[in-house]
């Protein structure tokens, strides 16, 4: 019996991998809120050290609220929410989720303590030290989520593992900077404005690099729901950065509009990346074609060595 001439590249068009069971609002929402919280803690600590009390108050409150909502979302997403404490049975560096759980276990109390101390005026030295601790860990909270989603077989996430940490760091900075711009007086928001603009630039640049790296899988970033979200996210990030960067230091309206655009852009980026991953998991082409190409390249290299 001869082999058939044409190969279907899939089995009745069904997915090869099982798509994540994660709920979009919970997990994509957490990717955004966790980044907003972590980078807001950094801003709050910087503001505390440099004497910008309004930014410290608002960014600190933002971090506390965002991380509390994050924890609720993460527990809500579990198939068996009552067992959320099972997360603390083990500590595994091979699982970004385990690393993240321990990171959040240390970060969240520090962030909340810093804000509580700031608001109540109780134990200020300890509160400021907690704020610095939250800032240090906050940087990890902003970026580990890149490893969380990249460390899967989902093509659009896994193949973007080199750029995603920078994309998420930039997106977090842009959101936290944008929030401070929106809420704090202009007299204190110089650093927030610079952080927001730099974050938006880093986000846009990393996304560009990631699109190039992904090859055919990059289609998932340009089409459908993910495509619409990421297109809007880019426009908001670029527009927000321009408005905030040029007029955000002089005009209250510009600061609010630019800041809001950056926050919205960051959220849409996370929801867009989440949707792109789901699309790349559900269509077998994105699993099969890159793997076939990789296999063919390896076989060609082996054949080349043999021929030599």
């Amino acid at each position, binding site marked *: 019996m001869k082999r058939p001439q044409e190969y279907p590249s899939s089995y009745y068009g069904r997915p090869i*991998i099982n798509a994540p069971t994660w709920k979009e609002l919970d997990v994509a929402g957490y990717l955004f809120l966790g980044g907003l919280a972590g980078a807001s803690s*950094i*801003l709050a600590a910087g503001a505390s050290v440099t004497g910008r009390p309004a930014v410290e108050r608002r960014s600190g409150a933002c971090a506390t609220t965002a991380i509390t909502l994050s924890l609720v979302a993460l527990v809500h997403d579990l198939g*068996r*929410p009552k067992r959320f404490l099972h997360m603390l049975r*083990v500590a595994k560096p*091979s699982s970004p989720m385990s690393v993240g759980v321990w990171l959040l276990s240390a970060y969240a109390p520090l962030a909340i303590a810093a804000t509580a101390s700031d608001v109540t005026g109780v134990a200020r030295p300890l509160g400021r030290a907690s704020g610095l601790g939250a800032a240090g860990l906050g940087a990890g909270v902003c970026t580990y989520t890149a490893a969380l989603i990249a460390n899967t*077989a989902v093509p659009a996430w896994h193949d973007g593992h080199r750029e995603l*940490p920078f994309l998420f760091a930039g997106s977090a900075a842009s959101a936290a900077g944008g929030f401070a711009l929106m809420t704090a007086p202009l007299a204190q928001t110089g650093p927030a404005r*610079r952080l927001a603009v730099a974050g938006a630039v880093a986000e846009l640049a990393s996304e560009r690099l990631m699109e190039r790296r992904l090859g055919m899988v990059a289609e998932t970033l340009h089409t459908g729901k993910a495509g619409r979200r990421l297109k809007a996210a880019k426009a908001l990030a670029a527009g927000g950065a321009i408005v905030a960067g040029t007029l955000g230091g002089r005009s209250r309206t510009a600061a609010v509009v630019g800041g809001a655009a950056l926050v919205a852009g960051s959220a849409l980026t996370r929801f867009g990346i989440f949707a792109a991953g789901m699309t790349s998991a559900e269509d077998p082409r994105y699993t099969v074609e890159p793997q076939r190409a990789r296999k063919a390249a390896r076989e060609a290299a082996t054949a080349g060595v043999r021929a030599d």
Partner: protein
Amino acid sequence: MSASGEGILNVMMRGGDPATEAGWEDAPPRMGFFTDTSICIGCKACEVACKEWNEVPEDGLDWLGSSHDNTRHLGADTWRHVAFVEQRVAAPREDEQIGRGADEGFRWLMASDVCKHCTHAACLDVCPTGAIFRTEFGTVVVQDDICNGCGYCVPACPYGVLDKRESDGGIHKCTLCYDRLGAGQEPACAKACPTESIQFGPLEELRERAAGRVELLHEAGVTEARLYGEDPADGVGGDGAFFLLLDEPEVYGMPPDPVVTTRDLPAMWNRVAVAAGALLVGAALCFGGGDRS
């Protein structure tokens, strides 16, 4: 931890053996499946036996319009899945004699898919609760009383094996009948298979048997026969459950070149650390200036 059963094989299996690497002392030989799809008749006895023995709930009685496959895909409630592929091929010689044209032949490919029990199992690596563990037999099992349904293993698996069961929120998959193995029995699917398409045994022995079977098929002119998942040098360190296929793996719904995602995790952690450092340094630089522009 220790495991029962000692013998000369145990000594030979040490080194590179996943059970030993997981901390088992005196682990029995690594056990696995060799699924020879060239003799699968598509009876689905494996699916039924698996469901019965493991009390896997019913997961929809649907007509899928995909040949005789109304099972769909491996998941929380499907631990064995028999794939049916219909292909138009050149007619065998006896058909040509009765006047059928060159392209009017037809073949059915049937294959019983299952969890691969990878040497480097992504599901086990990413499980944050320790619910997924390596047994003394080198297999990978989810402990239902520990799993909190976080779902991280679901997209981590390069084969699409694990999934969440909606009725209980937990993640379920093939255990390679861990309970039966402990009692010296073979898994239910292998026991039920009427053609011995599903063969169970020590992995080393199965690999030898499979190599012999491929050789035999090649001699008989079935040149398309190839093994899938038997190579310890592949992206998952070789599968504990491997296959003899008659076409490319993707035709059966399997990935052509699976890689355990955690192979790239050290590179990811490096990038995460650099990005976090850059964020802190960048933020510090942003504080080095005034507020008005």
